[in-house]
C-alpha cells in the first residue's frame, strides 16, 4: 500500500505539488490524470525515490521510504518504472531489457527466456538483436515497458506509457497491464492524459490539478460527477456553463443560465452561483417541431451553430441562449437533415445535469 501524506515538491520558487494526500491500495490500478505540467511525473518520481519531496512523507507498507536510507535499495527493487521519455541504453534491445534481471543476479538462461517472453508480450518479437538507439518512438516505449515489467516488481509505476503508440498497440499493452495486475497482483500507478485509458485500466482515478488531487474516485464517478468545473472540463464534459440558482425545492432546482432556465437535480439553494455540467452524449437533438416531452426534463429550442467531426461521430453545437454541444453519429446527422442554421431543440433529463459550485481560481 502506498500512502502519500501532505507531500509537497518545490522547484526553486515553483510549487508543483502542494500537500498531496492519497492512498493507493495493494493490487490496485490507480491512474493519475491531469493537465500537462500538473506534476504527474514529479509525483511518480517521488514515489520511485528518484527525487526527494520538499515536505510530507511517502510510505509504502508503512515504511517512510525517503527516511529509510539503508533500505533504499530493497525499496527501489520493489518498484519498476516506465519513464515518460524512455532512455535507451546504448546496446541491443535484449540487453536493455535484461538489465534489471542482471542486477538481481538472474541466470543467463532465465534472462534469455524472460526477455524473449517480454518482447513477445509487447509485440516486438524478433527485435532482440537490434541496437536500441535506432528504434522508433513507439518501439522504444514498448522496450521500456518490457524492461520494467520483466523484473516483476510489486509496484509498477508508468508515466504515460502508451503516448507514442498506435491504437492497436495501445490495446495490446493495456491488456498486458490488466493481466499483470490480475495474475501477479502488481500494484500499478499509471499517469496518463488519456482519460479513457484511465477509465479502461484503473480501479480508481486521481485528477491532479493545481498542486493536488482535485478528485479521486472510480472512473465512473470522475466522469459523471466531476468535483468541480476544472475537472469537468478536463474529463471532457463538453458543456460546462455557469448560472445562478433561481429556485430550489427538495433536491431539485432551477438555474438561470444567461436568461435560459435549466432544471437540475441539486441541493444548492437560491442565489448560489453554480456550474452545470452536461455530457454531450446525454443531449438529444431533434428537429424543432418534433421534440417530444421528457417528463420534467429540459427542452431548449435553438439553432445549429456548428457541426464538426469527432471520430465516427459529429459534434453538433446548438445555440439555445448559451452553447450546448451534442454528439451524434454521422448517420443520425444525415437522417435528421440538420446543417448549420437549422432550427432544432436540445433536450436532456434533469438527472443528466450535474451541478457543482462555481469556483473562480
Amino acid at each position: 500500500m502506498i500512502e502519500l501524506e501532505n507531500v509537497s515538491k518545490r522547484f526553486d520558487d515553483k510549487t508543483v505539488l502542494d500537500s498531496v494526500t492519497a492512498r493507493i491500495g495493494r493490487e490496485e490500478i490507480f491512474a493519475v490524470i491531469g493537465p500537462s505540467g500538473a506534476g504527474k511525473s514529479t509525483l511518480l518520481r517521488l514515489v520511485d525515490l528518484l527525487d526527494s519531496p520538499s515536505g510530507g512523507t511517502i510510505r509504502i507498507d508503512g515504511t517512510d521510504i525517503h527516511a529509510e536510507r539503508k533500505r533504499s535499495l530493497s525499496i527501489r527493487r520493489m518498484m519498476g518504472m516506465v519513464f515518460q521519455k524512455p532512455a535507451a541504453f546504448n546496446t541491443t534491445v535484449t540487453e536493455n531489457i535484461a538489465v534489471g534481471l542482471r542486477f538481481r543476479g538472474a541466470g543467463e538462461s532465465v534472462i534469455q527466456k524472460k526477455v524473449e517472453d517480454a518482447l513477445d508480450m509487447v509485440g516486438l518479437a524478433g527485435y532482440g538483436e537490434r541496437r536500441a538507439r535506432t528504434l522508433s518512438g513507439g518501439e522504444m516505449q514498448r522496450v521500456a515497458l518490457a524492461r520494467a515489467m520483466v523484473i516483476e516488481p510489486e509496484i509498477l509505476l508508468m508515466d504515460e506509457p502508451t503516448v507514442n503508440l498506435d491504437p492497436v498497440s495501445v490495446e495490446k499493452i493495456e491488456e498486458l497491464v490488466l493481466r499483470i495486475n490480475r495474475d501477479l497482483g502488481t500494484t500499478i500507478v499509471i499517469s496518463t492524459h488519456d482519460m479513457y485509458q484511465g477509465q479502461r485500466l484503473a480501479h480508481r482515478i486521481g485528477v491532479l490539478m493545481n498542486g493536488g488531487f482535485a478528485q479521486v474516485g472510480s472512473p465512473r464517478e470522475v466522469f459523471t460527477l466531476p468535483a468541480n468545473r476544472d475537472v469537468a472540463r478536463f474529463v471532457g464534459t463538453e458543456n460546462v456553463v455557469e448560472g445562478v440558482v433561481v429556485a430550489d425545492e427538495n433536491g431539485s432546482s432551477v438555474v438561470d443560465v444567461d436568461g435560459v432556465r435549466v432544471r437540475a437535480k441539486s441541493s444548492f439553494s437560491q442565489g448560489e452561483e453554480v456550474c452545470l455540467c452536461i455530457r454531450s452524449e446525454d443531449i438529444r437533438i431533434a428537429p424543432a417541431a418534433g421534440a417530444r416531452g421528457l417528463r420534467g426534463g429540459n427542452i431548449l429550442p435553438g439553432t445549429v451553430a456548428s457541426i464538426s467531426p469527432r471520430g465516427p461521430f459529429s459534434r453538433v453545437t446548438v445555440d439555445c441562449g448559451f452553447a450546448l454541444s451534442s454528439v451524434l453519429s454521422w448517420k443520425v446527422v444525415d437522417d435528421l437533415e440538420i446543417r448549420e442554421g437549422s432550427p432544432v431543440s436540445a433536450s436532456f433529463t434533469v438527472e443528466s445535469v450535474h451541478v457543482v459550485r462555481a469556483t473562480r481560481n
Partner: protein
Amino acid sequence: MYEIIEGFVEAARLIFTLDPDVMAIAARSIVISLTATILATLLAIPLGAVINFGTFPGRKSLINLIQTLYSLPTVIVGLLIFLLISRVGPFGSLRLLFTPTAMVIAQTVLILPIMTGLTISALSGIDPVVRDTLYSLGATRLQFLVNIMKEARFAILATVAVGFGRAISEVGAAILVGGNIAASSFGSSTRVLTTAISLETSMGNIPESIALGIILLAIALGVNLAITTVQHR
C-alpha cells in the same frame, strides 16, 4: 629537415633490427605508463562518479581545483614525489627513488587530475534519464557505476587515451624520480623513451631522438587501436 628523414630511417633500423636496448626501453615505457594509466583509471572513475553524481558542499570548487591541476607541471609532480621518497623524505625507507615503481607513482599522480576531470565531463554528458533508469531498475552502487561506464564508454575510453598519452609522453617526473638510469639489468633501469629522447636531444643526436619519438608514437598507436576496438564494441 634532413634529420627528420634520418630519424625515420633510424627508427626503421632500430625496429627491424630489434635493437635490444631500444626494445627494453620501449617495453619499460609501455609497462610503466600502462600501469600508471590503469591505476589512475581505477582511481579516477569512482572519484569522477562520486563528484559528478554527488551533491556535497564545495563540489564546484573541487571541480575547479581538479581542472587547475591539469596545469601541474610534470617537474613539480616529480619534485613532490621526489621529496616524499628521497631517503630523507617520509617514505625514504622504502627506497623507491630511481625505481620504475616511483615512476609509476609519479605518472599516476600526474594524470589523475585530468582523468578525473574528463571522467566528470564524460559522466555529466549522460542523459539523466539513463541514470534514473538504472536507479529505478534497482542498481547497487557498483552495478550503477559499471553500467554508467558502459554508457559513457566512448568518452571514458577517450579519457583513458588522454591519460595514457600524457603518461607516456611526460619526461619531467620520469627523470626526477626515475633518474634515466641505464643499468645492466632490466629491472634496475629507469630509462624510458621520453628520458632517452631527452638525453639524445641534449647530446645533439637529433635523428636518434626522432627515431625514438616515432617508436613512441607507434606504441601509442597500438594502444589507441586497442582502445578504439573496445570503444566501438
